[in-house]
């Protein structure tokens, strides 16, 4: 039984903010199914009572003194932005109201 359908691929692509053409979708159905099939191997293992390993190092919160340190000049912070007004990053409208 297929783990992944074209509908799943379309749903996940939406979450990931990707637009896929039909050929790519078909290809991903097969590839993701293959790879997820390999991942299903983990179900052979009983992991009841095993703590998940979230991180390698056993550290909790890492604090520092709350002091102001130099930060980037505005000009430098904006230098890689596709669009700015010299003070802020500019983006297209957030909401598409459809009638403008």
């Amino acid at each position, binding site marked *: 039984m297929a783990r992944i359908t074209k509908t799943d691929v379309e749903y996940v692509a939406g979450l990931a*903010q990707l637009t896929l053409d039909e050929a790519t979708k078909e290809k*991903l159905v097969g590839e993701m199914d293959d790879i997820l099939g*390999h991942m299903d191997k983990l179900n052979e293992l009983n992991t009841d009572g095993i703590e998940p390993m*979230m991180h390698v190092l056993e550290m909790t919160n890492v604090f520092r003194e709350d002091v102001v340190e130099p930060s980037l000049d505005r000009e430098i912070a904006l230098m890689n932005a596709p*669009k700015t007004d010299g003070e802020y990053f500019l983006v*297209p409208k957030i909401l598409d109201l459809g009638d403008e």
Partner: protein
Amino acid sequence: MSEKWYQKTAHEIRDAVRGGKVSALEVTESHLGRIAEVDSKVKAYVDVWNDAARAQAQAVDARIKAGEDVGPLAGVPIGLKDVFCTKLGTTTCCSKILKGYRSPFDGTAVERLANAGAVFLGKLNMDEFAMGSSTENSSIHTTRNPWNLDCVPGGSSGGSAAAVAADECAIALGSDTGGSIRQPAACVGCVGLKPTYGRISRYGLVAFASSLDQIGPFTKDVEDCAIALNIMCGRDPKDSTSANLPVPDFTKALTTDVAGLRIGLPKEYFTDALNAEMRDKVMAAVAVLEKEGARVVEVTLPHTDYAIAVYYIICTAEASSNLARFDGVRYATRAADAKTTMDMYTRTKTDGYGPEVRRRIMLGTYVLSSGYYDAYYLKAQKVRSLIRRDFTEAFEKCDVILTPTSPTPAFKIGEKAANPLDMYLSDIYTISVNLAGIPGLSMPCGLTASGLPAGLQIIGKPFDEETILRTAYAYEQKRGFEMGTPTAVK
């Protein structure tokens, strides 16, 4: 006299520059000349900083002339994987989405190398966002193996590995998430080390999978590896996951005394899946160390078969989260004439990412999505605990674990490109080390009949790079052969 400085190790260059035998500029010119000679074949670099390299070298020479101590890498030419943020040049991760990106800062590892007197020659090729095992996923070009130009140099740090092997820099910096330093080092026959997670600050390393990524050096010999570690390791306030532990002088570990050293050989790594020639080379290396007084013990890593599944769940999940930042707002190439913000995000990502990155984002998004999180991500983290426990138990019986770095020598360009799962399975011997967070080194242990390097992997306990280096140094000194210059760039 025109000495071939590009063939020298970093410590030889450093001693000559400090001793006034050669200027940093002459050494840099020697390497730039070498790049001009061979890089059209090897294609290790994606950007060569000719003028900036000369300027750095001249600055080193001026400081020496003024009587300053320029540091333990005085005048040593270094190449950087394109995943490291540098004020010089661009930082693109070999992705279309970051084309032209100029970092406003230098990462910590890069800054520490610069402060030690290094001269940076440019940026080296990689699989896009460090996702791959061959550099075929670079958006710029595929790097060639200096031993056979039809073969891959490994990946993702394939440009770094090839540049060191082909004498296009003395040291290269790479990053290793699932083997991306060790596997290419094995493919091209140089030394590559992934330190313990937390040893080297990741500040300025563009993130792929944050709980696995670690920076490390590619070098021509084990001594240079120790020198590079001395400079880069240690706590950095800019990376809260960098370990707050003392850093030893790693060069003190460079002795050939391995009497009584317990070498663990994991039975799960020496199966039929391992190419017979690779097995023979590794066992010959083990025999060299036994002759010096090391003892062999069999150990078991029973969850080895699950490592690839765990790895590709965790790394894709973390990648899908990390790569969400390339949205076309603060940086990245924004898709033109997007009408709404959502349209801008979607079109920027769709146009900017190559097929492998897109595939991993899709997988990562899927395993983290509602209803699948427990079945995949949480399950993988639990099995990750079991994999780490395997190593902890194995290291009760041994001091280092020796394995092949890769099940086969370098494969042909195009050979695995059509089947992603097949490509993933080639990481079988390296990824467990990242999952456990422990250090591993790869070094050459001979050439196969077809003239390709075989790699020996030496795995150590957490924060015990010293025993790895001692084992590696002893083997290097006693193995009785030199790798020499790779055949395709002689």
